[in-house]
Protein backbone atom coordinates (compact mmCIF):
# COMPACT_ATOMS: atom_id res chain seq x y z
CA UNK A 1 0.00 0.00 0.00
CA UNK A 2 2.63 2.51 1.13
CA UNK A 3 5.36 3.32 -1.41
CA UNK A 4 8.51 1.27 -0.72
CA UNK A 5 10.54 4.37 0.26
CA UNK A 6 7.98 5.31 2.91
CA UNK A 7 7.85 1.74 4.14
CA UNK A 8 11.61 1.59 4.37
CA UNK A 9 11.87 4.73 6.53
CA UNK A 10 8.95 3.60 8.69
CA UNK A 11 10.74 0.29 9.17
CA UNK A 12 13.83 2.16 10.41
CA UNK A 13 11.76 4.28 12.79
CA UNK A 14 10.29 1.19 14.47
CA UNK A 15 13.72 0.68 16.02
CA UNK A 16 12.98 3.62 18.31
CA UNK A 17 11.62 2.75 21.75
CA UNK A 18 7.83 2.76 21.92
CA UNK A 19 7.37 3.17 18.16
CA UNK A 20 5.35 0.45 16.46
CA UNK A 21 4.64 0.09 12.76
CA UNK A 22 1.51 2.23 12.86
CA UNK A 23 3.16 5.12 14.69
CA UNK A 24 6.20 4.87 12.42
CA UNK A 25 4.19 5.24 9.23
CA UNK A 26 2.26 8.11 10.82
CA UNK A 27 5.58 9.87 11.44
CA UNK A 28 6.71 9.42 7.85
CA UNK A 29 3.37 10.63 6.44
CA UNK A 30 3.53 13.60 8.77
CA UNK A 31 7.03 14.48 7.60
CA UNK A 32 5.93 14.24 3.97
CA UNK A 33 3.15 16.71 4.65
CA UNK A 34 5.65 19.27 6.00
CA UNK A 35 7.82 21.78 4.17
CA UNK A 36 10.47 19.65 2.37
CA UNK A 37 13.14 21.64 4.24
CA UNK A 38 12.17 19.84 7.46
CA UNK A 39 12.99 16.45 5.96
CA UNK A 40 16.23 17.71 4.46
CA UNK A 41 17.42 19.30 7.67
CA UNK A 42 16.49 16.28 9.78
CA UNK A 43 18.31 14.01 7.36
CA UNK A 44 21.41 16.19 7.26
CA UNK A 45 21.64 16.48 11.07
CA UNK A 46 21.04 12.76 11.61
CA UNK A 47 23.80 11.92 9.16
CA UNK A 48 26.26 14.09 11.07
CA UNK A 49 25.22 12.87 14.51
CA UNK A 50 27.43 9.79 14.96
CA UNK A 51 30.59 11.78 14.25
CA UNK A 52 29.52 14.88 16.14
CA UNK A 53 28.43 13.28 19.41
CA UNK A 54 29.86 10.36 21.31
CA UNK A 55 30.89 9.25 24.78
CA UNK A 56 33.12 11.55 26.82
CA UNK A 57 36.49 9.87 27.04
CA UNK A 58 36.74 10.70 30.75
CA UNK A 59 33.28 9.92 32.13
CA UNK A 60 31.12 8.34 29.43
CA UNK A 61 28.60 11.19 29.33
CA UNK A 62 27.52 12.40 25.91
CA UNK A 63 30.04 14.85 24.49
CA UNK A 64 30.24 16.91 21.32
CA UNK A 65 33.41 16.84 19.26
CA UNK A 66 35.30 20.09 19.07
CA UNK A 67 34.89 21.86 15.75
CA UNK A 68 37.67 20.95 13.36
CA UNK A 69 38.85 18.20 15.68
CA UNK A 70 40.60 15.40 13.80
CA UNK A 71 38.62 12.22 13.46
CA UNK A 72 38.99 9.97 16.50
CA UNK A 73 40.23 12.77 18.80
CA UNK A 74 39.08 12.28 22.42
CA UNK A 75 35.88 14.11 23.36
CA UNK A 76 35.34 15.80 26.72
CA UNK A 77 31.81 16.55 27.95
CA UNK A 78 30.40 19.76 29.42
CA UNK A 79 30.37 18.37 32.98
CA UNK A 80 34.02 17.33 32.86
CA UNK A 81 34.90 20.72 31.37
CA UNK A 82 32.96 22.68 33.99
CA UNK A 83 35.54 24.21 36.39
CA UNK A 84 32.90 24.76 39.10
CA UNK A 85 32.40 21.01 39.60
CA UNK A 86 34.19 19.52 42.59
CA UNK A 87 36.66 16.93 41.41
CA UNK A 88 36.71 15.31 44.85
CA UNK A 89 33.11 14.04 44.44
CA UNK A 90 32.30 11.35 41.89
CA UNK A 91 28.93 9.84 41.10
CA UNK A 92 28.93 6.37 39.49
CA UNK A 93 25.92 5.58 37.32
CA UNK A 94 24.93 2.64 35.14
CA UNK A 95 23.84 4.41 32.00
CA UNK A 96 23.88 7.89 30.50
CA UNK A 97 20.10 8.10 31.04
CA UNK A 98 20.68 7.87 34.77
CA UNK A 99 23.24 10.65 34.61
CA UNK A 100 20.63 12.87 32.97
CA UNK A 101 18.06 11.99 35.64
CA UNK A 102 20.52 13.11 38.33
CA UNK A 103 21.56 16.23 36.42
CA UNK A 104 17.90 17.28 36.20
CA UNK A 105 17.81 17.61 40.00
CA UNK A 106 20.45 20.32 39.73
CA UNK A 107 21.96 19.26 43.06
CA UNK A 108 24.98 17.27 41.93
CA UNK A 109 28.15 19.26 42.69
CA UNK A 110 30.61 16.64 41.51
CA UNK A 111 31.37 14.77 38.32
CA UNK A 112 30.30 11.38 36.94
CA UNK A 113 31.51 8.02 35.86
CA UNK A 114 29.24 6.01 33.54
CA UNK A 115 29.75 2.24 33.83
CA UNK A 116 27.85 1.58 30.60
CA UNK A 117 26.47 -1.70 31.96
CA UNK A 118 25.46 -3.44 35.16
CA UNK A 119 26.66 -6.78 36.44
CA UNK A 120 24.41 -9.48 35.04
CA UNK A 121 25.68 -12.98 34.29
CA UNK A 122 22.30 -13.67 32.67
CA UNK A 123 23.03 -10.93 30.16
CA UNK A 124 26.64 -11.98 29.79
CA UNK A 125 28.15 -9.23 31.95
CA UNK A 126 30.71 -10.30 34.54
CA UNK A 127 33.14 -8.32 36.74
CA UNK A 128 35.76 -8.15 33.99
CA UNK A 129 33.27 -6.47 31.68
CA UNK A 130 32.97 -3.44 33.99
CA UNK A 131 35.46 -0.56 33.50
CA UNK A 132 36.80 -0.84 37.07
CA UNK A 133 40.49 -0.14 36.28
CA UNK A 134 39.48 3.07 34.52
CA UNK A 135 37.35 4.08 37.48
CA UNK A 136 40.18 3.44 39.94
CA UNK A 137 42.56 5.36 37.73
CA UNK A 138 40.27 8.37 37.81
CA UNK A 139 39.83 8.23 41.57
CA UNK A 140 43.59 8.31 41.97
CA UNK A 141 44.36 10.88 39.26
CA UNK A 142 41.71 13.38 40.29
CA UNK A 143 41.95 13.14 44.05
CA UNK A 144 38.41 11.83 44.50
CA UNK A 145 37.50 11.54 48.21
CA UNK A 146 33.80 10.65 48.01
CA UNK A 147 31.97 8.31 45.65
CA UNK A 148 28.19 8.11 45.34
CA UNK A 149 27.05 4.83 43.81
CA UNK A 150 23.86 5.65 41.90
CA UNK A 151 23.19 2.40 40.08
CA UNK A 152 19.43 1.68 39.84
CA UNK A 153 17.59 -0.06 42.69
CA UNK A 154 17.08 -3.24 40.64
CA UNK A 155 18.69 -6.57 41.55
CA UNK A 156 21.44 -6.03 38.96
CA UNK A 157 21.95 -2.44 40.13
CA UNK A 158 22.24 -3.55 43.77
CA UNK A 159 24.69 -6.33 42.94
CA UNK A 160 26.80 -3.85 40.98
CA UNK A 161 26.77 -1.47 43.96
CA UNK A 162 27.87 -4.26 46.33
CA UNK A 163 30.61 -5.29 43.93
CA UNK A 164 31.84 -1.70 43.52
CA UNK A 165 31.94 -1.34 47.27
CA UNK A 166 34.34 -4.27 47.59
CA UNK A 167 36.49 -3.02 44.72
CA UNK A 168 36.66 0.59 45.91
CA UNK A 169 36.97 0.07 49.65
CA UNK A 170 40.76 -0.39 49.56
CA UNK A 171 41.09 3.10 48.02
CA UNK A 172 40.05 4.67 51.32
CA UNK A 173 37.39 6.98 49.84
CA UNK A 174 34.01 7.66 51.45
CA UNK A 175 31.36 5.50 49.75
CA UNK A 176 27.64 6.11 49.74
CA UNK A 177 24.61 4.70 47.95
CA UNK A 178 21.62 6.77 46.84
CA UNK A 179 18.70 6.33 49.23
CA UNK A 180 15.86 4.13 48.10
CA UNK A 181 13.52 7.04 47.45
CA UNK A 182 13.34 5.52 44.02
CA UNK A 183 10.86 2.62 44.03
CA UNK A 184 12.50 -0.76 44.27
CA UNK A 185 12.83 -2.50 40.95
CA UNK A 186 12.40 0.97 39.50
CA UNK A 187 14.30 2.86 36.94
CA UNK A 188 16.18 6.07 37.71
CA UNK A 189 15.25 7.39 34.31
CA UNK A 190 11.57 7.52 35.28
CA UNK A 191 12.07 8.96 38.74
CA UNK A 192 10.87 12.55 38.91
CA UNK A 193 13.49 15.17 39.84
CA UNK A 194 12.10 15.62 43.37
CA UNK A 195 12.24 11.91 44.19
CA UNK A 196 15.68 11.71 42.61
CA UNK A 197 16.87 14.78 44.53
CA UNK A 198 15.69 13.21 47.80
CA UNK A 199 17.42 9.94 46.91
CA UNK A 200 20.66 11.87 46.39
CA UNK A 201 20.50 14.00 49.53
CA UNK A 202 19.40 11.03 51.65
CA UNK A 203 22.28 8.84 50.48
CA UNK A 204 23.61 6.34 52.94
CA UNK A 205 27.05 5.04 53.71
CA UNK A 206 27.79 1.86 51.83
Amino acid at each position, binding site marked *: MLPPKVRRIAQLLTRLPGVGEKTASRYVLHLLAQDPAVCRELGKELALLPDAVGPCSRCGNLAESEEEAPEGAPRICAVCNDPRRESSLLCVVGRVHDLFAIERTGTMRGRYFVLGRL*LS*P*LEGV*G*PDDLPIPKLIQRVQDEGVTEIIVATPPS*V*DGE*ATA*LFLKRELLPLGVALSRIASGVPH*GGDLEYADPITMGRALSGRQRL
Partner: protein
Amino acid sequence: MRPLVLESLATFAFRNLVEVSVTLGPSFNVFSGENGQGKTNLLEAAYVLATSKSFRTSKLAELGAHGADVAGVRGKFREGPDYREQSIGLRGAARAPKVDGKRPKSLFEYAVRSPVVVFHPAEVALSMGPSAERRKLMDRVGAYLSPGLLVELESYRRAVRERQRALEVRGVSARDLPDWEALVVTHGLRVAEIRQRAATELGPRAEQGFARIGTPGLPLVVTYLGHAPADEASFRRALEESRVKDRARGAATVGPHRDDLRLTLGGHVAKGTASQGQHRAIVLALKSAEIEVVSDARGVRPILLLDDVSSELDAARTEALFRFLGAHEGQVLLTTTRPEMITVGTAESRKDFRVESGSVTPS
Protein backbone atom coordinates in the same frame (compact mmCIF):
# COMPACT_ATOMS: atom_id res chain seq x y z
CA MET B 1 -17.82 -7.27 55.59
CA ARG B 2 -18.64 -5.70 52.26
CA PRO B 3 -18.22 -7.75 49.12
CA LEU B 4 -16.31 -6.90 45.99
CA VAL B 5 -18.69 -7.10 43.04
CA LEU B 6 -17.86 -7.28 39.37
CA GLU B 7 -20.89 -5.59 37.85
CA SER B 8 -20.00 -5.85 34.20
CA LEU B 9 -17.42 -7.66 32.16
CA ALA B 10 -16.48 -7.11 28.54
CA THR B 11 -13.86 -8.84 26.43
CA PHE B 12 -12.32 -8.09 23.10
CA ALA B 13 -10.51 -10.83 21.16
CA PHE B 14 -9.78 -12.65 24.40
CA ARG B 15 -9.16 -16.31 23.43
CA ASN B 16 -12.39 -17.43 21.70
CA LEU B 17 -14.43 -14.65 23.34
CA VAL B 18 -14.41 -12.32 20.37
CA GLU B 19 -16.73 -9.72 21.81
CA VAL B 20 -18.53 -10.47 25.01
CA SER B 21 -20.36 -8.03 27.22
CA VAL B 22 -22.28 -9.22 30.28
CA THR B 23 -23.98 -7.61 33.24
CA LEU B 24 -23.49 -9.74 36.33
CA GLY B 25 -25.57 -10.23 39.45
CA PRO B 26 -24.22 -9.50 42.94
CA SER B 27 -24.35 -13.10 44.16
CA PHE B 28 -24.58 -16.27 42.03
CA ASN B 29 -23.76 -16.18 38.33
CA VAL B 30 -24.01 -19.57 36.63
CA PHE B 31 -22.46 -20.03 33.19
CA SER B 32 -23.40 -23.24 31.43
CA GLY B 33 -22.48 -24.74 28.10
CA GLU B 34 -20.92 -27.74 26.42
CA ASN B 35 -17.20 -28.36 26.59
CA GLY B 36 -14.95 -26.17 24.50
CA GLN B 37 -17.41 -23.25 24.28
CA GLY B 38 -15.47 -20.67 26.31
CA LYS B 39 -16.62 -21.09 29.94
CA THR B 40 -13.16 -21.33 31.43
CA ASN B 41 -12.03 -18.54 29.11
CA LEU B 42 -14.70 -16.29 30.64
CA LEU B 43 -13.51 -16.98 34.21
CA GLU B 44 -9.97 -16.47 33.04
CA ALA B 45 -10.98 -13.08 31.59
CA ALA B 46 -12.43 -12.07 34.96
CA TYR B 47 -9.24 -13.22 36.69
CA VAL B 48 -6.99 -11.38 34.25
CA LEU B 49 -9.07 -8.25 34.72
CA ALA B 50 -8.76 -8.47 38.51
CA THR B 51 -5.09 -9.42 38.78
CA SER B 52 -3.43 -8.81 35.37
CA LYS B 53 -2.40 -12.48 35.44
CA SER B 54 -3.94 -15.75 34.31
CA PHE B 55 -4.58 -18.81 36.49
CA ARG B 56 -4.07 -21.09 33.50
CA THR B 57 -0.88 -19.96 31.89
CA SER B 58 2.13 -17.80 32.57
CA LYS B 59 2.33 -16.91 28.88
CA LEU B 60 0.23 -13.82 28.32
CA ALA B 61 0.69 -14.11 24.56
CA GLU B 62 -1.68 -17.11 24.58
CA LEU B 63 -4.57 -14.92 25.71
CA GLY B 64 -5.13 -12.98 22.50
CA ALA B 65 -7.51 -14.62 20.03
CA HIS B 66 -5.65 -16.49 17.28
CA GLY B 67 -4.69 -13.99 14.60
CA ALA B 68 -5.61 -10.91 16.66
CA ASP B 69 -3.11 -8.11 17.16
CA VAL B 70 -4.52 -6.73 20.36
CA ALA B 71 -6.95 -8.07 22.95
CA GLY B 72 -8.48 -6.75 26.09
CA VAL B 73 -10.81 -7.10 29.05
CA ARG B 74 -12.71 -4.35 30.80
CA GLY B 75 -15.07 -4.30 33.72
CA LYS B 76 -16.65 -2.31 36.48
CA PHE B 77 -16.00 -3.24 40.10
CA ARG B 78 -18.04 -2.03 43.04
CA GLU B 79 -16.65 -2.05 46.54
CA GLY B 80 -19.26 -0.68 48.95
CA PRO B 81 -20.21 2.75 47.64
CA ASP B 82 -17.15 3.03 45.40
CA TYR B 83 -16.97 2.13 41.75
CA ARG B 84 -13.96 1.74 39.55
CA GLU B 85 -13.41 0.72 36.00
CA GLN B 86 -10.45 -1.55 35.38
CA SER B 87 -9.06 -2.72 32.08
CA ILE B 88 -6.19 -4.76 30.74
CA GLY B 89 -5.00 -4.25 27.21
CA LEU B 90 -2.97 -7.10 25.76
CA ARG B 91 -0.55 -7.04 22.88
CA GLY B 92 1.58 -10.14 22.48
CA ALA B 93 3.22 -10.73 25.85
CA ALA B 94 2.76 -7.11 26.97
CA ARG B 95 -0.10 -5.89 29.14
CA ALA B 96 -1.37 -2.42 29.89
CA PRO B 97 -3.47 -2.20 33.06
CA LYS B 98 -5.65 0.80 33.77
CA VAL B 99 -7.78 1.86 36.71
CA ASP B 100 -10.30 4.54 35.84
CA GLY B 101 -8.36 5.26 32.71
CA LYS B 102 -5.06 5.81 34.51
CA ARG B 103 -1.98 3.63 34.63
CA PRO B 104 -1.50 2.16 38.13
CA LYS B 105 1.79 2.80 39.95
CA SER B 106 2.86 -0.77 39.38
CA LEU B 107 1.57 -4.16 38.31
CA PHE B 108 2.12 -5.37 41.85
CA GLU B 109 -0.25 -2.75 43.18
CA TYR B 110 -2.81 -3.62 40.50
CA ALA B 111 -2.59 -7.35 41.29
CA VAL B 112 -3.96 -7.04 44.84
CA ARG B 113 -6.47 -4.29 44.20
CA SER B 114 -9.48 -6.50 43.40
CA PRO B 115 -9.25 -9.80 45.27
CA VAL B 116 -10.52 -12.96 43.57
CA VAL B 117 -10.16 -16.59 44.56
CA VAL B 118 -10.34 -19.35 41.92
CA PHE B 119 -11.39 -22.97 42.32
CA HIS B 120 -10.68 -25.21 39.41
CA PRO B 121 -10.51 -29.00 39.05
CA ALA B 122 -6.72 -29.06 38.66
CA GLU B 123 -6.43 -27.58 42.12
CA VAL B 124 -6.62 -30.97 43.72
CA ALA B 125 -2.85 -30.71 43.14
CA LEU B 126 -2.77 -28.44 46.20
CA SER B 127 -3.03 -31.55 48.29
CA MET B 128 -1.78 -34.31 45.98
CA GLY B 129 0.73 -32.52 43.81
CA PRO B 130 4.23 -31.05 44.09
CA SER B 131 5.16 -28.22 46.45
CA ALA B 132 4.93 -25.55 43.73
CA GLU B 133 1.12 -25.40 44.07
CA ARG B 134 1.35 -24.86 47.81
CA ARG B 135 4.02 -22.17 47.43
CA LYS B 136 1.69 -20.40 45.01
CA LEU B 137 -1.06 -20.56 47.62
CA MET B 138 1.23 -19.01 50.26
CA ASP B 139 2.32 -16.36 47.78
CA ARG B 140 -1.21 -15.44 46.71
CA VAL B 141 -2.18 -15.00 50.32
CA GLY B 142 1.14 -13.38 51.25
CA ALA B 143 0.68 -10.70 48.59
CA TYR B 144 -2.41 -9.49 50.47
CA LEU B 145 -0.75 -9.72 53.89
CA SER B 146 2.32 -7.83 52.75
CA PRO B 147 2.12 -5.85 49.53
CA GLY B 148 5.89 -6.03 49.12
CA LEU B 149 5.90 -9.79 48.58
CA LEU B 150 5.55 -9.76 44.81
CA VAL B 151 8.52 -7.40 44.39
CA GLU B 152 10.58 -9.45 46.85
CA LEU B 153 9.74 -12.68 45.04
CA GLU B 154 10.71 -11.26 41.69
CA SER B 155 13.98 -9.88 43.09
CA TYR B 156 14.73 -13.15 44.85
CA ARG B 157 14.21 -15.18 41.69
CA ARG B 158 16.37 -12.84 39.65
CA ALA B 159 19.20 -12.98 42.22
CA VAL B 160 19.03 -16.80 42.33
CA ARG B 161 19.23 -17.02 38.53
CA GLU B 162 22.08 -14.52 38.31
CA ARG B 163 24.06 -16.46 40.93
CA GLN B 164 23.42 -19.73 39.15
CA ARG B 165 24.58 -18.32 35.82
CA ALA B 166 27.72 -16.83 37.39
CA LEU B 167 28.46 -20.25 38.93
CA GLU B 168 27.95 -22.06 35.65
CA VAL B 169 29.88 -19.61 33.48
CA ARG B 170 32.76 -18.61 35.75
CA GLY B 171 32.90 -21.32 38.38
CA VAL B 172 32.71 -21.52 42.15
CA SER B 173 35.18 -18.70 42.75
CA ALA B 174 33.61 -16.15 40.41
CA ARG B 175 34.30 -12.73 41.91
CA ASP B 176 30.72 -11.54 41.92
CA LEU B 177 29.25 -14.58 43.70
CA PRO B 178 29.32 -12.91 47.15
CA ASP B 179 27.22 -10.04 45.76
CA TRP B 180 24.54 -12.24 44.22
CA GLU B 181 24.49 -14.37 47.35
CA ALA B 182 24.05 -11.29 49.53
CA LEU B 183 20.96 -10.40 47.49
CA VAL B 184 19.63 -13.96 47.50
CA VAL B 185 19.83 -13.75 51.30
CA THR B 186 18.24 -10.30 51.69
CA HIS B 187 15.28 -11.03 49.42
CA GLY B 188 15.05 -14.72 50.38
CA LEU B 189 14.69 -13.93 54.08
CA ARG B 190 11.91 -11.44 53.37
CA VAL B 191 10.07 -13.97 51.20
CA ALA B 192 10.43 -16.61 53.92
CA GLU B 193 9.13 -14.24 56.58
CA ILE B 194 6.01 -13.39 54.59
CA ARG B 195 5.37 -17.05 53.68
CA GLN B 196 5.69 -17.95 57.34
CA ARG B 197 3.01 -15.36 58.13
CA ALA B 198 0.80 -16.64 55.31
CA ALA B 199 1.11 -20.19 56.66
CA THR B 200 0.35 -19.02 60.20
CA GLU B 201 -2.82 -17.32 58.96
CA LEU B 202 -3.91 -20.17 56.68
CA GLY B 203 -3.07 -23.09 58.96
CA PRO B 204 -5.59 -22.86 61.82
CA ARG B 205 -8.41 -21.82 59.47
CA ALA B 206 -7.80 -24.77 57.16
CA GLU B 207 -7.51 -27.12 60.12
CA GLN B 208 -10.85 -25.97 61.51
CA GLY B 209 -12.45 -26.12 58.09
CA PHE B 210 -11.24 -29.68 57.61
CA ALA B 211 -12.56 -30.69 61.03
CA ARG B 212 -16.03 -29.69 59.80
CA ILE B 213 -16.00 -31.50 56.45
CA GLY B 214 -13.25 -34.12 56.66
CA THR B 215 -12.88 -37.49 58.32
CA PRO B 216 -13.91 -37.38 62.01
CA GLY B 217 -11.04 -38.10 64.40
CA LEU B 218 -8.39 -37.51 61.78
CA PRO B 219 -7.07 -33.98 62.23
CA LEU B 220 -5.38 -31.99 59.47
CA VAL B 221 -2.23 -30.14 60.51
CA VAL B 222 -0.80 -27.39 58.32
CA THR B 223 2.74 -26.10 58.88
CA TYR B 224 5.22 -23.96 57.03
CA LEU B 225 8.21 -25.97 55.87
CA GLY B 226 10.85 -23.35 55.15
CA HIS B 227 13.99 -24.01 53.14
CA ALA B 228 15.83 -20.81 54.03
CA PRO B 229 18.34 -20.90 56.90
CA ALA B 230 17.00 -18.81 59.76
CA ASP B 231 19.42 -15.87 59.75
CA GLU B 232 21.62 -13.93 57.40
CA ALA B 233 24.93 -15.41 58.43
CA SER B 234 23.87 -19.04 58.21
CA PHE B 235 22.05 -18.45 54.92
CA ARG B 236 25.21 -16.85 53.47
CA ARG B 237 27.32 -19.74 54.70
CA ALA B 238 24.91 -22.35 53.34
CA LEU B 239 25.01 -20.73 49.90
CA GLU B 240 28.78 -20.58 49.88
CA GLU B 241 29.05 -24.19 50.97
CA SER B 242 26.64 -25.40 48.31
CA ARG B 243 28.37 -23.74 45.34
CA VAL B 244 30.01 -26.91 44.06
CA LYS B 245 26.82 -28.92 44.40
CA ASP B 246 24.62 -26.21 42.90
CA ARG B 247 26.93 -25.86 39.93
CA ALA B 248 26.82 -29.60 39.24
CA ARG B 249 23.09 -29.80 39.83
CA GLY B 250 22.22 -26.77 37.73
CA ALA B 251 20.01 -25.32 40.48
CA ALA B 252 20.28 -23.86 43.96
CA THR B 253 19.82 -26.29 46.85
CA VAL B 254 19.01 -23.85 49.64
CA GLY B 255 16.44 -21.10 49.69
CA PRO B 256 12.72 -20.43 49.84
CA HIS B 257 12.19 -21.52 46.24
CA ARG B 258 12.00 -25.00 47.77
CA ASP B 259 9.54 -24.11 50.54
CA ASP B 260 6.48 -26.19 51.17
CA LEU B 261 3.30 -26.06 53.17
CA ARG B 262 3.28 -29.34 55.01
CA LEU B 263 -0.09 -31.08 55.21
CA THR B 264 -0.52 -34.05 57.53
CA LEU B 265 -3.57 -36.16 58.32
CA GLY B 266 -3.39 -37.90 61.68
CA GLY B 267 0.38 -37.43 61.60
CA HIS B 268 0.99 -38.73 58.05
CA VAL B 269 1.85 -36.55 55.09
CA ALA B 270 -1.38 -36.23 53.09
CA LYS B 271 0.31 -36.61 49.72
CA GLY B 272 0.59 -40.32 49.11
CA THR B 273 -1.59 -41.44 52.03
CA ALA B 274 -4.92 -39.59 51.91
CA SER B 275 -7.90 -40.93 49.97
CA GLN B 276 -9.40 -39.08 46.98
CA GLY B 277 -12.22 -37.81 49.19
CA GLN B 278 -9.80 -36.64 51.85
CA HIS B 279 -7.69 -34.81 49.27
CA ARG B 280 -10.79 -32.97 48.07
CA ALA B 281 -11.75 -32.05 51.61
CA ILE B 282 -8.22 -30.74 52.22
CA VAL B 283 -8.39 -28.62 49.07
CA LEU B 284 -11.77 -27.21 50.04
CA ALA B 285 -10.47 -26.44 53.53
CA LEU B 286 -7.39 -24.69 52.10
CA LYS B 287 -9.44 -22.68 49.62
CA SER B 288 -11.91 -21.54 52.25
CA ALA B 289 -8.96 -20.58 54.46
CA GLU B 290 -7.57 -18.60 51.51
CA ILE B 291 -10.87 -16.74 51.17
CA GLU B 292 -10.97 -15.91 54.87
CA VAL B 293 -7.38 -14.70 55.05
CA VAL B 294 -7.73 -12.59 51.92
CA SER B 295 -11.03 -11.15 53.23
CA ASP B 296 -9.49 -10.19 56.55
CA ALA B 297 -6.31 -8.80 55.04
CA ARG B 298 -8.09 -6.75 52.41
CA GLY B 299 -11.24 -5.87 54.37
CA VAL B 300 -13.48 -6.99 51.50
CA ARG B 301 -15.06 -10.29 50.43
CA PRO B 302 -13.24 -11.61 47.37
CA ILE B 303 -15.07 -12.76 44.25
CA LEU B 304 -15.16 -16.55 43.85
CA LEU B 305 -14.49 -18.06 40.47
CA LEU B 306 -15.46 -21.74 40.31
CA ASP B 307 -14.63 -23.64 37.19
CA ASP B 308 -16.33 -26.83 36.04
CA VAL B 309 -18.51 -27.58 39.02
CA SER B 310 -20.26 -30.93 38.53
CA SER B 311 -17.87 -32.65 36.16
CA GLU B 312 -17.64 -36.05 37.86
CA LEU B 313 -18.64 -34.58 41.21
CA ASP B 314 -19.56 -37.11 43.83
CA ALA B 315 -22.58 -36.36 45.96
CA ALA B 316 -20.64 -35.80 49.16
CA ARG B 317 -18.29 -33.32 47.58
CA THR B 318 -21.13 -31.47 45.89
CA GLU B 319 -22.89 -31.15 49.19
CA ALA B 320 -19.81 -29.88 51.02
CA LEU B 321 -19.13 -27.42 48.22
CA PHE B 322 -22.69 -26.13 48.12
CA ARG B 323 -22.85 -25.79 51.88
CA PHE B 324 -19.67 -23.81 51.66
CA LEU B 325 -21.01 -21.68 48.82
CA GLY B 326 -24.26 -21.06 50.63
CA ALA B 327 -22.25 -19.52 53.46
CA HIS B 328 -20.23 -17.28 51.13
CA GLU B 329 -21.50 -13.75 51.32
CA GLY B 330 -19.78 -12.49 48.21
CA GLN B 331 -20.15 -12.75 44.47
CA VAL B 332 -19.70 -16.09 42.75
CA LEU B 333 -19.03 -16.81 39.07
CA LEU B 334 -19.45 -20.50 38.39
CA THR B 335 -19.22 -22.61 35.25
CA THR B 336 -20.77 -26.00 34.59
CA THR B 337 -21.77 -28.38 31.84
CA ARG B 338 -24.75 -29.49 33.95
CA PRO B 339 -26.78 -26.52 35.16
CA GLU B 340 -29.53 -28.83 36.47
CA MET B 341 -27.12 -30.04 39.16
CA ILE B 342 -26.37 -26.56 40.46
CA THR B 343 -28.82 -25.88 43.21
CA VAL B 344 -27.26 -22.80 44.75
CA GLY B 345 -29.05 -19.48 45.09
CA THR B 346 -32.68 -18.48 44.78
CA ALA B 347 -34.49 -17.04 41.79
CA GLU B 348 -33.57 -13.55 43.00
CA SER B 349 -29.97 -14.21 43.95
CA ARG B 350 -29.05 -16.16 40.86
CA LYS B 351 -28.39 -15.22 37.27
CA ASP B 352 -27.98 -17.83 34.54
CA PHE B 353 -26.01 -17.49 31.32
CA ARG B 354 -25.45 -19.69 28.31
CA VAL B 355 -21.97 -19.97 26.78
CA GLU B 356 -21.84 -21.09 23.16
CA SER B 357 -18.98 -20.76 20.63
CA GLY B 358 -17.48 -17.81 22.41
CA SER B 359 -20.64 -15.82 22.99
CA VAL B 360 -22.37 -15.39 26.33
CA THR B 361 -26.08 -14.64 26.66
CA PRO B 362 -28.46 -14.45 29.64
CA SER B 363 -30.81 -17.43 29.81
